[in-house]
């Protein structure tokens, strides 16, 4: 970055995601997308690529689009391949002299379209080395179809396909670590971030992701008040808890070098993150204390490993 981050200056830029879209009040995705797009230099154009998702149906409902840049949506599982296609066209047309301007290619997909059905397409595009950005806005379930589990859903979480019953209580598997899988693709830049506080981490990482040549990936925690079942006005509080309990650590891996972006002043117990959310309510019932213990163990293990990787 050329200058020190200043939120006030950044929000004075013309909006690239305009108002009037249909995202729920308190949706993390809107904050994430406008945050990422705000990192673009004013004079640069983008082509936004979007998988079928809450974001897509809410921001591009015929005859209105909320985007000031060009945009394409074609299907659910192929946003990375779609982005590769735009990038390939750009290269070919630039060579012919038909396009001269600078364009950045930025894909947005939810965890469904990234961790699961879109996984193959993402891996292929990253492996091929296209000069593109892929942003996963991770709300930890298939929210657009009404809150079904994804491989990104945390352990024990309630969803409509992992409901709390008398025999089974929530998701049985741990959350897939997609960020690490992307690190293993050896691409120039991978980062985990969230719309925390004044959005500095989100902004600086978005800038790096957009302006580093080659395939770059950003995994952004994007809370969903409906799916996670917390009051819609508490977006920033939930993010802060996710970061301060180390449930969602902020870090980046640049050319294979791991760097921790944020160490909480005080590492809070995981139950501080779980308690405000209805999707974890059953974990606080008498007899389920072991669930909270297991969750804490898991968070601690992962945090220790991350500290090793980053040499912090």
């Amino acid at each position: 970055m050329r200058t020190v981050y200043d939120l006030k200056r950044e929000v004075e830029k013309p909006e690239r995601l305009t108002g009037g879209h249909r995202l729920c009040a308190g949706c993390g995705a809107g904050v994430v997308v406008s945050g990422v797009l705000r990192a673009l230099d004013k004079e640069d154009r983008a082509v936004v690529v979007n998988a079928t998702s809450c974001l897509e149906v809410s921001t591009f409902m015929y005859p209105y689009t909320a985007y000031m840049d060009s945009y394409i949506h074609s299907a659910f599982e192929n946003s990375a391949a779609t982005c590769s296609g735009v990038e390939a066209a750009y290269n070919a047309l630039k060579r012919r002299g038909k396009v001269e301007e600078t364009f950045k290619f930025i894909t947005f997909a939810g965890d469904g379209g990234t961790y699961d059905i879109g996984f193959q397409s993402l891996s292929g595009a990253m492996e091929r080395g296209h000069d593109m950005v892929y942003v996963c806005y991770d709300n930890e379930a298939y929210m657009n179809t009404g809150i079904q589990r994804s491989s990104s859903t945390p352990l024990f979480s309630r969803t409509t396909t992992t409901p709390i019953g008398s025999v089974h209580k929530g998701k049985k598997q741990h959350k897939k670590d997609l960020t690490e899988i992307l690190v293993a693709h050896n691409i120039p830049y991978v980062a985990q971030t969230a719309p925390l506080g004044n959005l500095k981490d989100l902004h600086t990482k978005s800038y790096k992701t957009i302006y580093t040549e080659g395939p770059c990936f950003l995994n952004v925690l994007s809370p969903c008040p409906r799916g996670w079942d917390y009051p819609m006005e508490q977006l920033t509080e939930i993010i802060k808890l996710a970061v301060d309990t180390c449930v969602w650590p902020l870090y980046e891996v640049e050319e294979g070098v791991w760097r921790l972006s944020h160490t909480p002043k005080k590492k809070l117990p995981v139950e501080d993150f779980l308690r405000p959310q209805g999707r974890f309510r059953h974990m606080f019932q008498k007899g389920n204390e072991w669930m909270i213990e297991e969750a804490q163990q898991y968070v601690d293990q992962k945090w220790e490993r991350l500290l090793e990787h980053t040499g912090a």
Partner: protein
Amino acid sequence: MSSCLSGNEAVAYAIKQINPDVMGAFPITPSTEIPEYFADYVANGEVNTEFVTVESEHSSMSVCIAAQAAGARSVNATSSCGLALMYELLYVAASCRLPITLACVNRTLSGPININNDHSDSMGARDSGWIQIYAENNQEAYDNFLMAMPIGEHLSVRLPVMTCMDGFITSHAIENIELLETDTVRRFIGDYNPENYLLKKENPMAVGPYDVSAYYMEHKVQEAEAMKSAKARIVEVATEFEKISGRRYGLFEEYKMEDADLALVLIGSSAGTAKAAIDRLREKGVRAGLVKIRVFRPFPGEELARALANTKVAAVMDKSEGFSANGGPLFAETRSALYDLKERPYLINIVYGLGGRDLKTADIEKVFGRLADIALTGEIGPTYTHMGQRSKEEME
């Protein structure tokens, strides 16, 4: 310029002459050679094409849709399950009105898995909104691919085009064909200048909306009108193509139909076998003829009805089984086309050649024998049958 090329080589060469901006490339037998031959052109710097070696056919079509929407000419080649894997995207390509060109080297759909020719793959996509044009031989495979872009890119059309050829039979057999000069090809296809595209600096564009019921139907009606307009455009392009090649193409080919009493209707390389059988029958005085369907989508119903109106009996031979229990897809279209005729020929359906089961001239002669019986007795027998399979007794 005369050359000895297989169908795949000829199509790869056509793509080279066109020099598209983007090719989504993924292999599947028997279309694999198309991206392979083209990869050599890419490796030697002979084309400007961005050759995107994707990880699946779903991705190759995704790349084509995105690239075409971005303002670039995009091509693809596949067969069978590859086409099936792209299925949802075929509909997206057509409904986004993107004139992508795809070479479909016809191979049957699994299962069981079989790599040989029939038309079940492209027939399965017949409702997707793609223009579908079939070749009988290598020359037609080459020519059809060259005509695809002037057809699809025309403002009255703006639909993707699938040019089909029989897997192994046409794709791998080597024939002597006439190639056009590259300059001639480039002049014929012209430049691709879409009115709106993602990379247009003057105004951005959004593609692929969530289209609620209040708007969706109008968009589909527009698409249906485009498919109707495609028929005239296909004929127009063929007229232009005849000027530069000397080869004439229509919506279908009529072979010895002027005075035919007994006719076949079929698609693809079997036409070659049928023509040979018809020549023999004609020597014996049988008034046999053939209508070889070239354009299946849009279906030339009116024109086909006129071509068959004066025959006594016709057999529609389907090289795919649609499992309608009522006959194959070509039969359904043909019967529908004949419905309004005041006087209609007797019509039967024979499903043949599934999974590459061979069709011989003797088989064609048998079919004409049956047609002759029907003409004589007026008794059709079973309307819908299969030909070429082992009998129950043989299987025991």
